[in-house]
């Protein structure tokens, strides 16, 4: 297999600026690059306003990128999108959303929600069978198909959302905070389901979250996003065993451990970029290893590693 095919998604220097008025614009994403290997899970972590959801939505072209390149299977998706490329994209990239209440149309039956991505010319019987198969795959019985979303609990709805995403047989699924609105025990259900689907179908995930603990569990590669910039990225071990950037360190230290012996005494690290004199615009991407990248200046890198 050649290298092009190995990377399902390549994002280079992606910028997404939203214009507020003539003079002001918000730099939601400001020069982010990463690649995702086929069949792996890339976890994108950051706090609210860091631009992580914007990246996901730009990849699936809910927003047109301000500049930069997004390549899916080596094909350029940045710039203006032709109808042909749009179809190529919808066939291969799907999304699971955050809010299990808002992401399903309350006025549509489950069967119509799940079937939405299918070709509307498909015969009805075939379409229904496909929907039933997906529903059963996510652990919902086919009797649910005729019901409306409000009859389901949060975890069940999220599984309907997954069924909707996998019915078109996509290669890449963008999971935008898809578990953060769920209870802990239900989160485990959904994450397990996602992992199973990955092994069965060779899916690739872009897993967007604000909470490192689940990201660590599900991801192979992790990117840490802050203020629209990727401050550190690498394999799971790079990030957790050898975190370099102080923001990554503070994120890791903020995860509460379910251990009443140690947790009450632990004090989390503070991160305050201006106070520590860190200006992201000055930093450049530095590779410590093939996979481990940190955004830093020479001086910063030295002090952080020391």
């Amino acid at each position: 297999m050649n290298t092009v095919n190995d990377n399902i998604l390549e994002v280079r220097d992606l910028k997404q600026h939203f214009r507020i008025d003539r003079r002001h614009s918000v730099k939601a994403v400001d020069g982010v690059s990463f690649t995702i290997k086929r069949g792996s899970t890339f976890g994108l972590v950051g706090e609210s306003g860091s631009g992580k959801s914007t990246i996901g939505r730009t990849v699936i072209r809910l927003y047109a990128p301000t500049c930069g390149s997004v390549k899916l299977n080596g094909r350029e998706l940045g710039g203006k999108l032709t109808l042909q490329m749009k179809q190529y994209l919808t066939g291969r990239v799907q999304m699971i959303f955050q809010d299990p209440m808002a992401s399903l149309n309350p006025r549509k039956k489950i069967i119509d929600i799940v079937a939405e991505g299918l070709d509307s010319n498909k015969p009805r019987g075939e379409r229904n069978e496909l929907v039933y198969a997906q529903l059963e795959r996510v652990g919902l019985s086919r009797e649910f198909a005729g019901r409306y979303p409000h009859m389901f609990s949060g975890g069940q709805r999220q599984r309907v959302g997954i069924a909707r995403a996998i019915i078109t047989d996509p290669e890449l699924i963008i999971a935008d905070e898809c578990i953060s609105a769920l209870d802990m025990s239900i989160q485990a259900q959904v994450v397990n389901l996602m992992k199973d689907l990955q092994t069965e179908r060779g899916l690739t995930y872009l897993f967007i979250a604000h909470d490192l603990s689940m990201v660590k569990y599900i991801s192979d590669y992790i990117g840490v996003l802050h203020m629209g910039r990727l401050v550190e990225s690498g394999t799971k071990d790079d990030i957790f065993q050898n975190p370099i950037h102080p923001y990554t360190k503070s994120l890791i230290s903020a995860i509460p451990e379910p251990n009443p012996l140690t947790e009450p005494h632990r004090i989390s690290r503070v991160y305050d970029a201006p106070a520590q004199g860190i200006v992201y615009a000055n930093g450049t991407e530095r590779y410590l290893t093939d996979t481990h990248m940190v955004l830093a200046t020479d001086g910063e890198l030295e002090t952080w590693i020391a």
Partner: protein
Amino acid sequence: MQVDSGTILNIQKLSVAFQTTSGELNAVRGVDLTLRRGETLAIVGESGSGKSVTAKAVMGLRDSNQIIKAGEILYDLDGQVTDLLKLTKKQMISQVNGRRISMIFQDPTTALNPLLTIGYQLTEGLRIHRKMSRKAAWERGVELLDEVGITQPRQCMKRYPHHLSGGMRQRVVIAAAISCDPEIIICDEPTTALDVTIQAKILELIKTLQKKMNIAIIYITHDLGVVAKVADRVAVMYAGKIVERGTAYEIFFEPRHPYTWGLLLSMPDINAADTRLYSIPGSPPNLLHKVTGDAFAVRNEYALNIDYEEEPPVFKLSGTHEVASWLAHPDAPAIQIPELLRRQIEAKISHGDEQ
């Protein structure tokens, strides 16, 4: 009622229902809780388990369709034990809310009035409950902001909520909650809406303040990591009932209820290698229907026949540890803690010993 010296709040057999268009929803089905002075009691449970409803009942926040079916909430009001459920809304506001018991909500954005300055909202309680003069209250407000870690408190007093970040707003809400030196603070998922790095800081702040002011805290959350950080004692709620309670050590290291096992196992373990997460099958029950037997039985892989017939009583395991499960009955088959959980617990204990 027997009140030992340390107990300041005693909830007895509280049952709360809601009148909905689809029938009566029994959100809380007989909850007993005691809170001691200066301790933190965490109530853990999934959404719909009734944990928030219990807390709101203490605060006297009554929805129009809410019915208190039974129970009492006993609180020592100026040397006289009073049932808070029997107080009128007016009495609650003038004597209890804010002054003796205050609450911190999940979303700091909606907890503050966007049209009033921080200073005004912060000093409101002081002026009303403590009868302070405008000036004295203002000075106290500045001190409070300083105490909750806001830099430049004087400028902050003059600002409006939308000028502040989410974390700052929650600090203001905390400052307002402690402004009248309450005995009890109820925290209803106070950090869920915040970013993780800020979440940790807010938790640490609440802990420091608690120690300093000797406040008792009821902490409502679904996050066991948070529980481990703040709680002295833990009550696990499921379907409107407390299924297990004990000290934090007992709940985390000697859990007895299968639901607690499931909760503990569904936490991703950051220190362990890739093992598959355990997840409790199914969904929580619909409390619109009558529950026969143990509400958890259908999701419980250790369910006994009797679980479907009869509600489990509370079994006392130690002075502090209680569990409502038939598995604790002497006739029940002896069940060991799941192997995976046992290993996790051992790892945690040894990790704790190292430090």
